[in-house]
Structure formats: structure tokens, C-alpha cells
């Protein structure tokens, strides 16, 4: 039940551009799987691009590693390249390796396979054996992997030392950050592509989990398992762990560690809060009562699962814990203060900042402001002399202070990294006056008939 796409590495929204491509390649109007099958059947096909609009592909004799070829962003295309050509590790003994390493383990330059000098040999390059240039290859199935004859007349041949995919990138912690290209499980089963729902249906659609890097059919750990795993192409085995070497250093790379407040999702929170937001004491992580769970401290060494402290070992929204209340399995610790993610403030403003004339030009998140003259003026603010450059201003009398249009398309406007000069800004409140509402806030309240 393997897909022909399993032999390919996809680069989304990208196309392969050859400097001297010309107009030679034919477009094939086919499904992406058929394109993969056709490319796999052709010896000189190394990749194909897939046009998402026209639903057609072009079979290409090059990859990103070829001369005069570059990868370019293009939202209309996905590029699929044969893994053997782009992976920088080897599977098994590396017979299928088609990468471009051309130096030996000890740094000697490889001899071109077509040359018989300085070392004479029996191998002749052909379309089948991939003995191109002077790249490391394994034409004799040497168990130690790819090798080459060297240009040093005193050293006939040497191993290239290309690592096996199981060892090329090691695991820190539970391997949530693993981005390597191993695509087999510990029992040797081939992994199912994350973007396919066959043979196993699953919730881990890569589009839904962009931060988990669910690339191709590579081993990953999107659900805080003990280590990376994958669904298998064997219909009888849903999922299995992958066997990947562990790193010597064990620490989380991508989280900010703090103990007084929490940043992001709080995976780096190492404080001593032991109650949930509603005040229920937390269960100890090393205990299985009242709630049985998988987050045993010895299996999750980097998650800080000490005592009964609130932690976030699974990428939830915030630090949490299992509670000591048998009726409530887990609860968040939202009472922990969130670390301010504002940038350092520049100067201060009085009142609501309408008179601010300083030169702060970044938002509180550090996003650069757009020039006032470049904006489409969505708020129809009359032009004024004070709207200079891209400085933070308050031309609409916003009660929350100076602001600006930002350069981030996801944040049309935001407040600036400026604080009120007089500390806490005074809030003026208004008593009820004439209030009128339109159609909002209406609902049908039905009387509940109490039957017997």
C-alpha cells in the first residue's frame, strides 16, 4: 500500500528553475501520484514539478543540487525531488545514494568515476549505476556505505563517512524538534506520508499542524510521544516508533525558560505553581493516582516534571496539571502570570498621546511601522503635519495611546512601545445617557414547559 510519492521529497509552493531550461519539457495532465509513478519509471527523471492550478506536471532530469538550478518560491507549484538525490544521509548501505558529497571521511578529494587515473578500476558510469562526476557511491554494496577512489595516488579508495539517516541527526529530549529524513520505523516498516490518509486515517494533516513539520513520510513527534514515530504503510500496523540515535546534550532548544511567568505556551515554565486556576491542588507527575497518565518524569527528561508543579509537556495552550480531584482529570494554571511580550518602551506620552511628537517607530511587539504616506488610510484620518515618517502618533484620539499602521500584513495596526509618562493612565467613565442598539443582542427566550 505504499504510495509512489514515498520516494519523493516535497517542497511546497516552490519550483525548480534551470538557467538554460529552454522550452523542452512536456506538461502531463495527470494526478500527482501518476506523475510520481511515471518519473520513477524513467531513469533520467530526477524530479517533477506539479502545477496546482492546471493539475499537471513536468518531469525533470535535474534536482536542486544540479548545476544552474535554483529553487524559487512559486505558490502555483510543488516540487517533488527523488529522495536519493536530495537526502544527505543514507538508508541501509547507501547503494541508492545519489547525493553530491565528493570528499572522503578523511578529506581526500574523490577521483572522477570516468577516469582511470590515478587509480585504475572496473567501474564505468552508466544511467543505471549513478556513477556521476566524482560523487561518493556504493556500486559494490559495501556494508560501510558510499566510498570513492581518491585523487591521492597513495590512497586508492576511502569511505566517505556519510551517516545513516538513523544517526545523521540525533534526538534531544523526546524528539519534538526532530527534522531529519528517516522514513522507516524501528522494525523496518516504511512510513506513510503525513499528507495521505491511506492505509491509515489520521488527524495529523500537515496543513493543520504547520509548526510540527510533518514533511513527506519522515518520522516525527507531533503528539508529545516518547520519541518520533510514524503511521506505517503496512495496513496491519497503524503506527510505530522510529529508532533514532539520542544526542548527548538533552535540553529543549525552542522554549524560553522562566520561573516567575510564562511565555508562549509555557513549555519553558519552571516555576512552582501547584494549583490549577480554580485552586485545585495538582497531582504529582510521578504518581499515577488519582489519574493514570503517560507523562512519567523519567520518560520526559526535559519537561521539568518535578513534584506537582504546573507544566506544559504536550504543547497545550498553557501550563497545566493533572488534578488531585478524581472527577477532574486535568486543568490549566491560567493564574500564572504571562510574561510581557512587549518590547522595551521608548520615551513616554501624556494624556492619550495626541500630542506625542517623539520618534518611536515600532509597535509594542517590535514590528516596524509603515510610513503614514504609504498607508491606504483605512480610518480616513485627515492629513496633518504631525504625521511624519513612520513615527507613532495618535491622530484619531485613540484612548489607548499612540499607534501606527504596521508592516506586518497580519497586524494592520498596533500600539507602540511607549508608556504613559504619568504611570497608570486615568480612565474616564461615562454614566448612562441615551443608549440605542440596533439588531444585536436579541434572542428568543422560550419558556421551558415542564412535563411530567
Amino acid at each position, binding site marked *: 500500500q505504499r504510495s509512489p510519492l514515498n520516494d519523493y521529497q516535497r517542497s511546497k509552493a516552490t519550483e525548480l528553475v534551470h538557467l538554460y531550461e529552454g522550452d523542452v519539457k512536456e506538461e502531463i495532465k495527470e494526478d500527482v501520484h501518476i506523475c510520481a509513478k511515471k518519473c520513477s519509471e524513467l531513469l533520467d527523471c530526477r524530479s517533477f514539478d506539479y502545477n496546482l492550478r492546471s493539475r499537471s506536471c513536468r518531469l525533470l532530469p535535474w534536482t536542486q543540487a544540479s548545476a544552474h538550478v535554483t529553487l524559487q518560491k512559486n505558490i502555483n507549484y510543488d516540487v517533488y525531488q527523488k529522495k536519493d538525490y536530495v537526502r544527505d544521509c543514507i538508508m541501509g548501505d547507501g547503494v541508492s545514494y545519489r547525493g553530491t558529497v565528493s570528499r572522503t571521511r578523511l578529506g581526500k578529494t574523490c577521483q572522477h568515476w570516468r577516469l582511470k587515473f590515478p587509480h585504475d578500476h572496473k567501474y564505468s558510469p552508466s544511467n543505471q549505476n549513478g556513477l556521476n562526476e566524482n560523487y561518493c557511491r556504493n556500486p559494490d554494496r559495501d556494508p560501510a556505505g558510499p566510498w570513492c577512489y581518491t585523487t591521492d595516488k597513495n590512497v586508492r579508495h576511502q569511505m566517505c563517512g556519510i551517516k545513516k539517516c538513523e544517526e545523521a541527526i540525533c534526538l534531544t529530549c523526546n524528539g519534538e524538534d526532530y527534522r531529519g529524513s528517516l522514513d522507516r520505523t524501528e522494525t523496518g516498516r516504511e512510513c506513510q506520508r503525513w499528507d495521505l490518509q491511506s492505509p491509515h486515517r489520521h488527524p495529523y494533516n500537515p496543513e493543520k499542524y504547520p509548526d510540527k513539520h510533518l514533511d513527506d513520510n519522515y518520522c516525527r513527534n507531533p503528539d508529545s510521544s516518547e520519541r518520533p514515530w510514524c503511521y506505517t504503510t503496512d495496513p496491519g500496523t497503524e503506527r510505530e516508533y522510529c529508532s533514532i540515535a539520542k544526542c548527548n546534550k538533552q535540553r529543549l532548544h525552542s522554549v524560553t525558560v522562566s520561573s516567575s511567568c510564562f511565555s*508562549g505556551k509555557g513549555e519553558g515554565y519552571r516555576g512552582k505553581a501547584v494549583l490549577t486556576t480554580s485552586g485545585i491542588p495538582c497531582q504529582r507527575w510521578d504518581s499515577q493516582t488519582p489519574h493514570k497518565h503517560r507523562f512519567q518524569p523519567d520518560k520526559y527528561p526535559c519537561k521539568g516534571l518535578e513534584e506537582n508543579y504546573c507544566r506544559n509537556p504536550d504543547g497545550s495552550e498553557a501550563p497545566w496539571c493533572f488534578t488531585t480531584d478524581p472527577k477532574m482529570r486535568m486543568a490549566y494554571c491560567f493564574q500564572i502570570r504571562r510574561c510581557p*511580550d512587549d518590547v522595551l518602551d521608548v520615551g513616554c506620552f501624556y494624556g492619550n498621546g495626541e500630542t506625542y511628537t517623539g520618534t518611536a517607530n515600532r509597535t509594542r511587539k517590535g514590528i516596524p511601522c509603515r510610513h503614514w504616506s504609504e498607508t491606504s488610510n483605512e480610518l480616513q484620518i485627515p492629513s496633518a503635519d504631525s504625521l511624519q515618517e513612520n513615527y507613532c502618533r495618535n491622530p484619531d484620539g485613540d484612548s489607548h495611546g499612540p499607534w501606527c499602521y504596521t508592516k506586518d500584513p497580519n497586524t494592520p495596526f498596533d500600539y507602540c512601545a511607549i508608556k504613559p509618562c504619568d504611570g497608570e493612565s486615568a480612565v*474616564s467613565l*461615562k454614566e448612562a445617557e441615551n443608549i440605542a442598539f440596533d439588531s*444585536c*443582542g436579541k*434572542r428568543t*427566550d422560550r419558556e421551558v414547559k415542564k412535563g411530567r
Partner: protein
Amino acid sequence: MVGGVPGNSPWTVSLRNRQGEHFCGGSLVKEDWVISTRQCFSSCDADLSGYRAMVGTLFTNPGPNDPDMQSVPISGIRCGPSDSGLVMLKLERPVTLNSRVALICLPPERYIVPPETKCEIAGWGDTQGTGHEGVLKVAHFYVMSNDECNTYSKSRKLVLDNEICTRPMPVELGACEGDYGGPLACLTHDCWVLEGVIIPTRGCGKKNAPAVFTRVSIYVDWISKVMKM
């Protein structure tokens, strides 16, 4: 919701994570905009792909064939002024208004809700065993002035001007885990108005203690600006 009764709150939104689990509440202020609280989200530029807003159902886990349920992906998040703790969530497409789905009004800018105004909170949060699991629950409260609210704390100012208080109740009644971000809706001139947003506080539905919410009227100008842009 601790205490309270099953009820109808057509502007109350259930926010769902990538696993489809309810994690916080929200209020529908426009067909494609929901207000909630910052504490429910990892950051002001959190990647919310896979997150959804669910409206039109009374059930925590509605069946796939629930005719009234609408589930729309959340496409963006905007954080409110730093002291507000509010967020606005942009929906990928507008929801359809009907008898089960309605907008809640916004209060006038900087409006103070008069004490004794009748209000209600709604949510699918934890009930702490008080019953009616799995359905939307509501609880009624009466507004209390901030000055009076502050008399309940001897040591420090309990509420700030950008917060709103409700009168203590003699029974265990109030918001709990999963209700945060939801509405404190008050009836004014025959319209339900979003006067407050439920924020995480220590304890659930404590009796004889006032409840504190973010006062929405202070941030109406920001809300309007976000929707306008």
C-alpha cells in the same frame, strides 16, 4: 460553570483547538469577529490554523448532524491594548445568524453599567460536579460598583477601572475552567450587551465573593478600529 442552569446564549462561542476540544469561550460581536481573553492563547501572533469557533449548538460535543451547529476556522488573532487582556479573533468566513446564533451588542464607549443591572455569564466550562455536564450553562448576577467591590478586599485594590464586578452570591456559582473568554452579558434597553469578558481568577464560583471581569466599554474604540481595518 459551577452552579447555573442549562440556557440559551446565542452569542457565546466555543473555541476549539486542533484536536477539536473546547478550551475557552468567546462572544460573537460581528458575523466574523469573536472577542475572547488573551490568556487562552499562546501569543499575539499565534498560528491558529486548525483552530475553530463553534456556534449554534448547546452541546459541548455536538453530533456531526447537529443541524444548528456552525464551525468556522479562526484565521487571525489581534491582541488588545496591553492592559486589556482582550483578543479579537477573525473568522475565516462569516457565520449565519439565526435563532441559535446572534450578535451581542457592544456598550457605548467608557459606559459604566449601573449597579444592580441584571447580567449573565455563559459557558461550557467545568461544572465541578454541579450537574448538567455537556451542555451550555448560564448563571445570573447583578452588577456592583467598583467602589463597593473594593470594600471586599482589605489589603489591596480588588478591581481596576478597566474591570467590572458582580455582586457576591450566597451559593457556589460562577465561571470555571473552559468558561474563560466568554461573555458577561447585561440587559440594557431590551438588548443584551457585552459588558464584560470572563477572565481567569483563583477559584470557581466562590460563594460570598464578588466576581471580576474585563470591562469591555473601555476597549470599544479598539474593537471598532480592529473591525474597521
